[in-house]
Each structure stands twice: as structure tokens, then as C-alpha cells.
């Protein structure tokens, strides 16, 4: 067989220099007329080892990690020319123990089934991997709308955007509401900081989303489709456009699609302008309609009155990506994975203080600890695992002692966090939980659309309290005021943004109240993050009087003579920490 060399060209790969790697390999191949086929693919999930290059030859498949353009020369020379794979650089192969084998092997890939395994810009590649077969099966077997919906219902698939509402139910409602016009919308407005699974699918397997939407359109008799994709995903939009063109050419979109007379269905892309709240379905619909992206009261739900007040089914990217697989493999095959109430797999974006940051797809029911340690490789720099933020700014912190919690909707909710779209931000002992809460609240505060009083004003006031706490100006009663505001905001907001915005604060207060108290009562940040609460002093025993710290102090807060212990003037100290990093004798004490 022909040897193939495939370069991962997802956003993560490109960011790590994969374009250069690709160009280099292409140049080498052309210069020396090398005997391999050069291909492109997208993210395989191992973002922490990008750029990734996969070589498949007679002997098997090898994935090389960290293949910069320079290293590419070495890899091509050794592997292609000398048939001598460089074991040290190989991160995954099934031929021998490689560094990241367990990362791949422990996963179950349904959503990401094609990502990293094919050229996302090729409909042929997709079809080769059973693409559009699901829809064709429906046509061939003359499955009724109700049968399709029943399959989705039976699979137990729940909305992967965060809400976890049974997808089949949504479809059923949209199908029941009769109208001459109906719509399917794909919510590709992925906005949680630290979440990028949707982007990965959009970039790596756009056709699976189109197919999922076409199946949904079939099931509810939709007459139009919209993908609402954030404009910050240019590569995703580009590949979606290519996929749409290809699907048109194939007759999968447009008039009389899949050979069904009178079935006209088309999909348009609407680029979102970067407002987080537009991920909320009613705000998203308002935005498509050309209005200011602000949510409105539900009911009516979009299934009854959505886009242009017509029945509308709206699912997110990951949900649609599951659909063709379920149709092809059957509800039972899907329901085999997961727990009683949460079926199938879930993609997580691992980020923060974790060794392997990237995408993983795991069956529901795996413990958080396993995701972090088995797949994520544990905590960076061997620090102590402290907590994980699940569900982005709408979610909450789950502390280390609850890390046996399994990933399913209900178990996660019980901790006060939410599954959300699957962002997992891992924190270690050097993370200040008040600071984390402040970070997420600052995000939601900025992203509040400004409509509801509680969300608009309340998040601002909460943030101000958190700011004063981390600035050492916290007062007695601040925790209670935060809680009072938090519960009021949750109870009195129109959309998910407001209803969940206080979650990071509430969960950190719930699990790390002592840290809040330390900030307020003792004016100390236990994780040593909040600058105004830090004190740098000199350990007189250890100080050699080398004057390095004195010379480097930008605030001229350090005094002392050569060979005598120095002194830090606390009134002048700006807590920049330069002395701490510059001291070679560990004589600066940070408290």
C-alpha cells in the first residue's frame, strides 16, 4: 500500500505551527519526489502534543508528536527514507508502548469518530467513513419521522449544550407542532472559556453536523436550517462552507434531496458576533432574526415558537454529531454506553493545570478522577490536585474530595456544578478559589446582555465584593451578602446565563469557605495568588546579603548592606515578587 503522511491542521495544530510542518513536508516530497501521499486532517484531541503527524505504512500507523518543521525533516528522513521510525517521537501507535497510547485507548469515539482520521474538506473521505449512510438508510428503509424520533429517544441522547434535555423529546415536540415552515438550528456558538470541543468537530468533521441536521430536519419536517457559528471560528466556518457546497453538489441539500420528491431543505450559516449570551437559544434566535441578542421568556419554547415564531428544533454541535452514528448503529448500541440516565459518551475539553490538555471523549459514568488522572495524565508539575471547574462560567467547582463523582448529568448537578458543554478546568494547590470565582464572574458580568436587573446589576455588585475581598478590603458579612445576591440572581433571571452565573461563587463558598474567611478575616490568600494580601519578608538566617534582590526591586523597597541581611519595607513593597524569583538562596519568605 501507499504510505500516507497526514498532518493535523486543526486550529490547535495550526497554532502550534502545523502549517509550517505541512509546507515543509510538502516541499521535501516535491524536491525529492518522495513516495508517499501527503494528506490533511484535523484535531485528534492530543492538542498538547501538536503539531501531530501521522504516518501509515505497510507496518502500521504511527503518530508523531511535537513535529515542528525542523523535526519533520528528521522524521521524514528516518521514517520514510530509512524505514526507521523514531520511537522517541512517536506518541501513539498500536504496535508498541508509546507515550500517549493510553490517552487514545481509554476513549470511546463516537462524536470524534472522524476527527483526525480524515480530510475534513473531503466529502469523499466522509462518505468513505460511512458518511451520509445514516440518512440514506432512512430513505432506503422508508423510516417514518416517528421511527427516527423513536430511535433518538431510545438512545437516551441528551442535549450536549449543557441543558441535558432529551434530544428525542425536543424533536417530538417540534414534530407535533404543525406549521408550513419549520426550522432546525445548530448552535455552534461555543463560548465557555476553556471549551473547544464543538470547534474541533466543526473543523474536523463538518459533514457529520450537516447529516445530523438533515436527519433532524427529516424528523420534524423542517424547511430550513441555520448553523449559528461564532465568527471567532474562521476555520470552522470555512470548512462548513466547503461542506455545504459539497453536500449541495451531491444533492444532500437543496431541492428534492436524497431523491425524495418535494423535500427541499437547505442550511445557511449565520455568524455570531461574539456575544456569550447568544449561546442561549432564545437570544440566539433573536440574533438570527437581526435583533439585539437578548433572551426572552420561555415558554413558549422554540419547539412551539422559535425562529420567525415558527416551530424550531435547536441542538448544539456535539448533539448533532451523535445523530448519524445512532441511526447507523442503533439506539441500543448507543445506550450501551453510560449510566442509567446519561447515555453515550461525552467530550471534555481538558484545560488548566493538567498534563495533557486537549479533547477526550469518554463514556458517561467515568469518574472525574479517572478523566483527570488516567486521560489527563494528572496535575502538571506534580502539584496537589485541588478542584476542577466543570461547566465553564455557568458551572461550579468540584473539590478534590468529590473527584469520585461520575460524569453524568445528575451526579454532576448534585455537586452544585453542571455538566455544561464539557469544559474541565483543573486547578491545583496554587489556585486561589476566590480568585477563580472572581475570574468566572468577571466573565459573566461582561457577557450579561444587560436585560434583567439581577444579572446586569447583581453580577456587577458580586464582582465588586469579590474584588474587595481579593484586595484585602473584605468585610465581615461579605460572604453572606454574596450568598444573598447569588440566590436572588439565580431565582430572578430570565435565561441560563443569569440563573447560573453565581454558581462558581456558590460552589467555591460551599467547598472553600475557609479560603474566603482567610481573605476577609486574616487578610491572607492561602494559595498566595491575591497580590495585595501577600507579604514578602527576608529570612535573616538564609540571606547572604548579596544585594541581588535590592538591585532588582522596582519599588526600591529593599534596603541593606552587602553581606548583611536585607530588609523589605512593607509600605513600599508592591508585591511584584521579583525578589522572590531572583533570590538564589530561598531567603525571601512569602506569606
Amino acid at each position, binding site marked *: 500500500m501507499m504510505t500516507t503522511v497526514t498532518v493535523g491542521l486543526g486550529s490547535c495544530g495550526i497554532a502550534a505551527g502545523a502549517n509550517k510542518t505541512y509546507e515543509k513536508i510538502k516541499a521535501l516530497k516535491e524536491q525529492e519526489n518522495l513516495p508517499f501521499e501527503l494528506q490533511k486532517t484535523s484535531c485528534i484531541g492530543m492538542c498538547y502534543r501538536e503539531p501531530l503527524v501521522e504516518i501509515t505504512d505497510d507496518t502500521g500507523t504511527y503518530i508523531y508528536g511535537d513535529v515542528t518543521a525542523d523535526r519533520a525533516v528528521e522524521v521524514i528522513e528516518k521514517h520514510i527514507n530509512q524505514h526507521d521510525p523514531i520511537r522517541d517521537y512517536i506518541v501513539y501507535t498500536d504496535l508498541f508502548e508509546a507515550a500517549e497510547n493510553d490517552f487514545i485507548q481509554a476513549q470511546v469515539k463516537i462524536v470524534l469518530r472522524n476527527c483526525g482520521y480524515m480530510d475534513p474538506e473531503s466529502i469523499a473521505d466522509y462518505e468513505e467513513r460511512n458518511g451520509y449512510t445514516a440518512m440514506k438508510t432512512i430513505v432506503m428503509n422508508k423510516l417514518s419521522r416517528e421511527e427516527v424520533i423513536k430511535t433518538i429517544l431510545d438512545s437516551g441522547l441528551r442535549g450536549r449544550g449543557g441543558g441535558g434535555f432529551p434530544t428525542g423529546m425536543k424533536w417530538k415536540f417540534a414534530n407535533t407542532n404543525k406549521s408550513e415552515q419549520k426550522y432546525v438550528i445548530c448552535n455552534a456558538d461555543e463560548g465557555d472559556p476553556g471549551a473547544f470541543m464543538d470547534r474541533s468537530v466543526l473543523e474536523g468533521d463538518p459533514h457529520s453536523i450537516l447529516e445530523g441536521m438533515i436527519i433532524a430536519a427529516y424528523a420534524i419536517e423542517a424547511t430550513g436550517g441555520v448553523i449559528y457559528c461564532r465568527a471567532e471560528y474562521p476555520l470552522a466556518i470555512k470548512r462548513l462552507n466547503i461542506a455545504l457546497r459539497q453536500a449541495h453538489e451531491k444533492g444532500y441539500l437543496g431541492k428534492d434531496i436524497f431523491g425524495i420528491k418535494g423535500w427541499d431543505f437547505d442550511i445557511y450559516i449565520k455568524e455570531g458576533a461574539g*456575544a456569550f*449570551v447568544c449561546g442561549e437559544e432564545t437570544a440566539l434566535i433573536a440574533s438570527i432574526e437581526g435583533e*439585539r441578542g437578548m433572551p*426572552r*421568556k420561555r*415558554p413558549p419554547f422554540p419547539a412551539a415558537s422559535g425562529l420567525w415564531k415558527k416551530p424550531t428544533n435547536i441542538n448544539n454541535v456535539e448533539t448533532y454529531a451523535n445523530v448519524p452514528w445512532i441511526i447507523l448503529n442503533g439506539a441500543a448500541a448507543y445506550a450501551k454506553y453510560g449510566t442509567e440516565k446519561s447515555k453515550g459518551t461525552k467530550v471534555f475539553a481538558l484545560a488548566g493545570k493538567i498534563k495533557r490538555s486537549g479533547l477526550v471523549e469518554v463514556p458517561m459514568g467515568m469518574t472525574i478522577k479517572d478523566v483527570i488522572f488516567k486521560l489527563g495524565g494528572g496535575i502538571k508539575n506534580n502539584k496537589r490536585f485541588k478542584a476542577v471547574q466543570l461547566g465553564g462560567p455557568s458551572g461550579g467547582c468540584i473539590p478534590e474530595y468529590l473527584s469520585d463523582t461520575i460524569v453524568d448529568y445528575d451526579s454532576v448537578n448534585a455537586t452544585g456544578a453542571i455538566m455544561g458543554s464539557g469544559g474541565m478546568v483543573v486547578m491545583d494547590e496554587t489556585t486561589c478559589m476566590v480568585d477563580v470565582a472572581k475570574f468566572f464572574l468577571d466573565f459573566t*458580568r*461582561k*457577557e*450579561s*446582555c*444587560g*436585560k*434583567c*436587573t*439581577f*444579572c*446586569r*446589576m*447583581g*453580577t*456587577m*455588585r458580586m464582582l*465588586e465584593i469579590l474584588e474587595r475581598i481579593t484586595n484585602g478590603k473584605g468585610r465581615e458579612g461579605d460572604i453572606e451578602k454574596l450568598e*444573598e*445576591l447569588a440566590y*436572588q440572581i*439565580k*431565582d*430572578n*433571571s*430570565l435565561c441560563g446565563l443569569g*440563573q447560573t452565573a453565581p454558581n462558581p461563587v456558590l460552589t467555591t463558598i460551599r467547598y472553600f469557605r475557609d479560603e474566603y474567611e482567610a481573605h476577609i478575616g486574616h487578610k491572607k490568600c492561602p494559595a498566595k495568588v491575591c497580590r495585595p494580601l501577600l507579604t514578602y519578608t527576608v529570612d535573616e538566617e538564609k540571606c547572604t546579603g548579596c544585594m541581588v534582590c535590592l538591585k532588582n526591586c522596582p519599588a526600591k523597597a529593599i534596603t541593606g548592606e552587602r553581606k548583611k541581611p536585607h530588609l523589605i519595607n512593607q509600605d513600599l513593597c508592591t508585591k511584584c515578587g521579583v525578589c522572590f524569583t531572583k533570590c538564589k538562596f530561598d531567603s525571601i519568605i512569602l506569606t
Partner: protein
Amino acid sequence: MSDNSLNIILNGTIVKGYPGETILELARRNGIVIPTLCNDDRLEPFTSCYVCVVEVEGMRGHQPACSTKLAEGMKIITDNEGIRKSRKMALELMLSNHYADCLGPCKQTCPAGVDVQGYISLIEKGMYTDAVALIKETNPLPAICGRVCVRPCERECRRNFLDEGAPVGIDYLKRYASDHDLESPDKFVPAVKKSTGKKIAVIGAGPGGLSVGHFMQIEGHQVDIYEAAPKSGGWLRYGIPEYRLPNDILDKEVKNITDLGVNIFYNKKFGENLSYKEIRSKYDALVLTIGSQKGTGVGCTGDDAGNVYSGIDFLKNMEVTGQRYDFKGKTIAVVGGGNTAMDCCRTSIRCNAHKVYVIYRRTEKEMPANPIEIHESKLEGVEYMFLTLPKTINKNEKGDVESITCIKMELGEPDASGRRRPVPVEGSDFDLGVDYVLAAIGQKTDVNFIDDINTNAEGGALKINKWGDLDADKNTLQTGIPSVFAAGDGVTGPATIIEAIAQARIASVSAHQFVMGLPIRPAAKPFTSKRDNFKKQLAQDYLDKFEKQIREEMPTLPAEGRMNFSEVELGYKGADVAHHESQRCLECGCTAFFNCDLQKYSSEYNARQNYFEGEFREYQADFRHPYIEIDNNKCILCARCVRICREVVGANALGLINRGFDTYVAPAMGEALQDTHCESCGMCISTCPTGAITENVIFKPGPVKTKAVESICTYCSVGCAISLQTVNGFTFGVTGRKGLVNADGNICRYAKFGYNYLNDTSRITAPMLRVNGKFETINFEKAFGIIKEKISEVNPNDNAFFGGARLSNEEMYLIHKLARLAVKTNNVGSFHYLGRGESYRKNCEYNVPFSEIKDASLICFIGTEINRDHAVAGFMAQNAHFVKKIPQVMVTVKENNSLSHKVNQEIKIKSYYHFIKAMNHFILSKGLENGLFLRDRVEGFEEYKKQLLALDFHDLLKEAGIGADELGNFAKTYNNEMNAVILFSEKEISGAASKELFNLAMITGKLGKTASGLVAVREKNNSQGLFDMGVSPHYGIGGQELADAGYIARLKDKWKTELLATDETKCLHGIVQDGQVKNMFIFGEDPVGCAIDRSYVDSLFKPVEFLVVQDYFMTETASMADLVLPASLPAETGGSYTNAQKVIQQFQAEMKPKPGLTNLRQIAGLLAAFGHKVSSNPIDTFMEVVTLFPENNGNEKLRLCITLKDNHHRKYRYGCDAVMKRFEEEFERKITKP
């Protein structure tokens, strides 16, 4: 209905709800109040304020009542602790970013809470008596306070921040208004409530006691004041010298109070010749306003010397004895630095003292005296010895004072009062030779009646506090004896007059509650938003934001002329000065104060403004639009303005900018509002629940509490119900009222902003006769005589009468009666319709009611810019377009059309008449007509069809300026719609074109069906009345032909006459054009001013020998008249208007007619001059009209009408009405001003 009704449990009670209904609607229907700020019934639910939250069983969190729809079995709780907590927090969160003042610092600072900003606004308008009425709500002694108040208000006045450095002359203005009122024959007399039978005793007739008298007496109680001195006023008379407060002013204000029924008994010393025992037996309550009467000595050795007096005794003695001291050649030392010291030193000067020293131990800066007093005393020659303390008073051999040994002081550390404590400088002693020493150091309360009261009290005891003053509850001023209350200096120790008055009011409220058996509660403190809660207000916040305006200073007696007790301050010289000074008010308080929902709910929920501290946004108010101002500081982001502008007006002129905390409302693209699609309708103002969007008025807006005068708009023919917000005849603004036509209470810019003419002081208020080219005022009798004489001199048909389309039905009717009955001519009509009216006669027949526009499936505008000219009907179309997505098509000849941006499709043509004819041609030639409708309902079809189809279609298209395809498509679309409605206006559509429109509606079978057919609007409020009231040479009441003998017979019978105008009727237009009219009478029209072709109109007037014009102002037509009659306003007259859809709406006369006689009385007067006695009462007149209406003929068939050519003969703009013209011109001028 019962089939689909829902069972709901609302607060534990089972009630019926309906599908689609919201919780808020259900609650309202059941009389349960749920607060809301973002909801407006006119708009789709939005849900942002979260003040309307309720609990619904089974639903997470709270549910907003405004947008939660009912569902079967819902269990709703609308009020509990949790709900109240959330509502309160919502308010507090909003308030934490509400950088605004509810009240100006003047009112906030005034101890008595006198509404300074309000009365300044009234003074600005010359409404002095109303200003006094407002002041007297809280302060019954304005003329006194206008002279001697210490003016804490002026200290806080923000004018101080500006570069002229002086506050508004608040006190001077108050004095000006109250002096004016005191002298006025119609001075303010408060209403006294019905007697309660309760009796109140008051001890002391000082400012406190007098105020109690005022406040309690008007509540219906009998107040008796007992005064120890022989005269009233207390300290006002015995302490304040006459050069500051003349006794006659005091006497007049006291008389105002005794005139209410208050008795004052003099020479009654409580505890001496008046025992509490007696009081207790006679009265239901007692209020002690005893003052603080006892003077204190100098407090140094030797202060028992002769000629050493306490200052107050010195002042009092003079008043009691009526004798002035003779200080000729004497040297006087006044010790102290307060206002009493000022009174003593300035009085001493007036007693001819040789030298007067004021000895004060601190510096001038620390002096508590009013700076003006210090200034004036220096002018008068008083010498100051600051930082000086008397140590010993040295006596001569007679024991009288000879000199004072003083010691110099220097200022040390600040003491408890914040003033720096003076400390003696060792060895700085010196002697000052003096003849008299007046100690103005302080006063004490004299409580020698305490034993008497406590001996005789039953239950409780009056106590004295540690300062020696009366002990009373500080909130209610009730003493230890439940029926005894105390107020003023006797409670507080020596303080100010205004504080005594403030306390008197509190004590009065409490005493009132006590005698009425009510729980004694201090008045609830309403929520008040303050900018100072966010940051201390500084000069930089105000500098450069206002024009500089130098204060009108108080004119005073020249210093050399002051050796007497004449009043030094002379008062403002005239109304102009007061007006000018009133203009300096910066209007710090919110103009929406009396109707702000945020303030109302914040008070109700005890919301605190600074519960949440933190960032707040400060915005510059946007005054760019001439009528609408936007102050984002007050905005709570309910988006009602944004939504009403979009959902109802369709202008989309306002939007929300930014996100989250940084969100604010601004005109689209940051432009000035008038540069957007803004229609200046003021609907945003009408919906704003706070004062964030308000009217930008040309006068001081107050705010003041207004009286709503209900009326009907006098601009266009939609017929909106309005309320004039008035105070004593001055209109402060106009609001919409839920009416028969404008059921939502919507009004447009004409009604909203076109009211300034009502306040114009250049109104004509009396008949005026031209004598030698100049107008002279004459009386009505003479005017009527002249008119009768002129009419008698010519043939009846040499006279012509014109009634304007703005007049009421009753006015029109009497004008037509005057012509036909008294003058015996049928020459009666209107310039408005002159030469074109007959083809419009049927325009209102079979109209689709405005309220059905929303049920249309297609809305077509032919020509009309309905959004501007008949905006409220336009709102109905626009709202239907927004809510139900009903498509709109505009057909227009205009290049730029203000409606274009709102419609789905615009068809540009050249001629409406030909366009419509081409439509009809197309439909008939294609055989698309509604045969069934034509067969059953319409006559003349074949004839019409034959005539029309004889025309060349392409010629019609060419004339219409439209292509065959475009016309065909539109014709088919229109024809195919079940519920197509065409709206058009007489302003653009000629009589012939309107007839063809009716033909179109008939051949397509759309006429006279629900939500289908035509809506014709006329230019003026009562254009229709002209047709109905017989203001026509050919037609009588209800369009009955004068040729109809039956009608004439009825008329003769009704009018009890055998002789009417001859049956012959001529074309009035022709008569006027031919110069046959010798005497012309024009009521409420301005054909000259409104002429489109001025030279043509001038030519009409040339042959006229005697011209009479009745109008409000000297219009261009009136200024040509020989005799001008003053017109009364609708709200002065009463009557009815008939709108474009024949809705007759009546309104009452609620204001006094400025001209003395209403229009109806004037016309009736003229009729009387001819010997016809008629009623001038609008109701009687209307009833007479009703009896003359034609009988309904029932199922008359419709008739297609052949027109041969277009007849666009509009000769006058503005519906020939000077008021309309005036506003449109003002509007254009202001809106286009660079």
C-alpha cells in the same frame, strides 16, 4: 368562553383565567396589585425589571408575572416575604446605579420641606397666588419667611457652584410672590375641611403656634391660641426689629390665619392666669409652642451692672413699650455673633448710638449670623471686634457700666461644633469704654408652668430634658401627656423660624391623629434618590453646563437713609425681575417626581439606595432634541422607550447600546434623536416609568401637582382623548387618555407638544375694532351692535359666514343658524373645503374602524404619511405590522417619504387619481371583479365599467407613472387579500381620487366588511363636523339637502320661524371668487396665513368691505379684519367633535374663558341681537342638533361614481387653522435648527 377557561389558584382563591393571559393580567383583573416597571400594556411582554416576580408552585425560582402565561391548575402566590425580598433587591440594585436627584437640594434642605423648585416654577409664570398656595402646604408664613428666614435652601442651592457664585434668590422670590398675594383681591385662601367638632388649644402665638393654628384649623378642628403678650407673633414681633420685618406684614399673615377661624386670646399667661385644668376641660388636645424666651447674661464678673441688658429683653422692651431707646451720644457694646446680636447692633444704630461695637470671640467666618445682616450692619456703621472676649464689666459709682475689660483671643483646635475653639492670649487685656452692654449670647426656655400642668394632668407627665427644654418624642412631638404636644424653640432650644414651622406641622399631624383616634405615626418618609449618595456634589459637576446668569439682588434703602425703622429690604421691583431670577433655578429635582414608578415602589418597599455600593455610571443628559430629553442617569433599562418606538411607532429611533452594566439607551447610531427616524411623537416619554425621558419644555417645569383637564385633541381627525395637565389655567403638559379612539391612550406629537399656544400671553381677550388703522378694545355689546348694523345695511346674500374645521359641532351649528336664521343667507361654509368639499362628503361612509386595522391582512397607504399627519392611526397600523407581521405597502408620488422605511413595499407613482383608475381598469378588463358583491350591493356597475374601459389603459398608466407589471401585480395582490385595508388622507387624495378609491373597494367587494375596505382621514379634528352641522350652502344638518322641503319644514318648526334663507343656494366658492361678498365673518380660520397661493387669497379679500374674524391670536387674517372677536379655547367652552369615523366625542368646559364670553355665547349674543334667543350651553345646543338629524334609511345600495378628471384643489395648508400652522412652523423651525 367557559370551555377554554383555565382554573387558577391565585393566592389561595380559585379564579378563572384564559389561555394566553399572563399572571399580571389575571392579577389585575382580580384587583391584585403587582408592581412592575418594564411592563406597558401597549407592548409585548419583555421581562427585564424583575419587580413583578411571583411564586408559581412547581416552578423553580421566581416567575415574572408580566410574561408568565397561565396554565391549567397553576398555583400562584403574589406576595410573601420571599417575593417582597426579591422585589426590594431588584429596586435596590437599580437604585445603586440611579445617579439622580428626586428632589432639589433646596427642598431637601428646608426643614419644613417647602417645595422651592415647584413655587419657583409658578413664580416664573406669574402665578403668585398658586405659588403661595404651594408654599402654604408646608409653611403658612411665607411673607414673614420671605424676609427673615435664615435660608438653608440658598446655602445648598447649586447655583452657588456656578461662576456667578450666588444662589437663586429663593427667599426674595418667595417674598415677591407672597407680598403680591397679600395685596391681591383673589389672594389664596386654603380650603377648610368640614368641622370635626374637635377643639385644640395652643400656647403661644409665635411662628410655631400660628402654624399649628393654620394646619389644624384647615383640618376642620377649632384652634384657640393663648398668647401671654398683648399681640401676636411672639419672637417675630418682639424679637425681630421692624426694619427687617414690618409689623403690618406680620399682622396680615396673622389675619390670614385668624380668617380661617382660629381664635387668639391675648394676655393669657399659661400657668399664671391660664391653668392647664381649664384647658384640659375645654380642649381635646394641647400644643405647646412656647418658644425660648429667657435671655442669658454676658456671664462675666460685673454683668449685674446697670445698663447691661440681655439682647432679647432690649428688643422686646422697645416693642412692648412702643418706646425707642435714646442712645444719642452713647457707645454700645453688643456681645455675641448670632442674628440677635445683629438685631441689637442694627437697632442700636437706629436709636442714634454714637458708636456700636460687636464683640465676638471668634472670627467673622465663624459667626452664625446671616452674612447679609453682617454686611448691612457694616454699611450702617457697626464696628466689629473679633477674637475678643469680655472679661470684666467695670461699673461706675452709680453701679452702671463704665467700661469692659476685654481680652484678645486666638483660634485653637476645633471643638465639638467643628468650629475652632478660641483661646485667650495672655496679657492682651484692654479696656473699652461703653455706656450700654447688650448680651446676645443665648436664650433659654421658660417652663414655669410645669407644676401647673403636671398637677392637673391625668395620666402622664410633662418632662423637661437635660437642656431645660420640653421633652417630646422627636418623631411625633407628643409629650409625656398623650394629649399634649410640643413644637418649636420650646422643644429644640433657640432655633430658626422655619424649624419652628416644620415642627408645628409634625405636631399638628400627630395632634390631628390623636384627636381623631388614629394611631400616632409620623408621616412616612418617601424614598428619595440623591446624587450625594454616590458622590458629594462639587462645582466641577455643574460648571460649564449652564449659562451664566447674575443674581437679581435685593434693592435696599440707601445706608444713609436708615436711621429709622423703615424696612431696609424693598422687595423685587416687578414681575420681570422675579421672572428673571426664577430663570436661574437649575431644576435639580426630577420633573417626573409626581409620577415616577421607581420612586413609588422604592418607597413602598423601603428600598435603600446605598445598600449596594459600587460603581455607578454618570451620563450627560441629551438635550439635543427640541422636545425630548434623555437622561440616562435615571434610566433603569426597562427598554420601554426602545420598544414603544419600535413596536408601536415603528421608528426604531432608540436602541440599547453596549452590554451588561454598561448598557444605556441612545438614539440610533448615536445621532441626535431628530437625525434618526424619530417622529417626535413623545411616545417614549409616555412610557418611561422614571424621569429618564421627559419633555424638554420651554418653561420651568416644576414639577408641580397638576389638575387633569379632559379634552379631545384639536389637531387631526383621528380624535384622541387627551388630558391637559394644568394648574389654574396654565398647561404644564399634555398626556394621552384612554379614549374611544385612542383606547391605549396614545397621542402623537401634535397633542403632546402642540399646546404652548394655550399658555401664550398674547391671546386676544376682548373684541377689537379697527379705528383709523389701529385696533381698539371694545366691549361685546358694542361689537355685536356694529355687526348687526353692518349686516342690516346690505342684502342678506351679500354676507358670508365661514366656520373653521377646528370648531366644535355646537359652534358650527350656531354659526350656520346665525347665517340661515338670523341673516337669512345660505352663504355659509368653510375656507378649508371651499371649492372642493362636496366630493369629500362621503369619505367617512363605510370606513373600517381604526380598531380593526390590526385585523387586516394587508395594509396599503395611498399617499398619506400617516405616521406624521394622523400618527395615532399610524400607530395602530404599525403595531399590527410589528406584532402580527401584517405587510404594508406604500403608494406615493413623493421622492422622499417619511413612511418608506417602515413599509414592506413602496410603489412610486406620479398621479394617485390615474393610478387608482388604472387599478380599476386592470381589474375590470381582466374580469377580476367581485361579481357577487357588485350584483347584491352596488348600483351603476355596467355604466361605470363601460365608461372606464373606454379609456386607454396605457394612457392611464402613463399618467399614473407606473409600469403595467407593477400595477398589475399590486392590483392582483390587493384584490386577492381577504382583508386589505387602504388608508388615505384628504391632504393628498383629491375628491375625485377618493371617489375612485371607493369604486375600487366596491368592484373588489371589500367595502363595508370587517377589517376590509377604506380608512379615510381628514385634515382637522372636526372636518367631519362641517359636513354634519350644515356648514355648507347646499346641505343642512347631517347632509340633508336644502332642496328637501321636508327638511326645511322641520327646520322652520324647530327654529320657530316662517322665514329662512331663500331656497336658492349658490356656490359659495363662486360668490367669493366673483367678489360678491361685502360682509365676511370668519370663525376660527386663517385663510390668509394658510394660503398656498397668497396672491390668489388676497384677491378674494379685496372686495370685502367689512371683515370680522374670531380667533385666539392676531392671525394674518385677523390683522386684516375690521372687527376681531376673541376666541375661547375648547377647554373653556365645552362641546363635541366628530372624528373622521363619525365618532362624536364630548368634552366639558373646565377652565374660565379668558375672553369673558365663550364662542358659543358670542354667537348666541349675535343671534340675540337679531332677536333670536338661543342657548349657549353646549349640551342644549347638541340636543337641538340631534333632533334635526336625518332618519336612517337602512339598506341603501352603494353606487359606483363616475369621475371624469382629477380635482385637486387644495388651496390652504394646515387645514386652514392658525393653531395647526403655528405648531407646524414651530416644529419645523426647532427640528431643523442646526
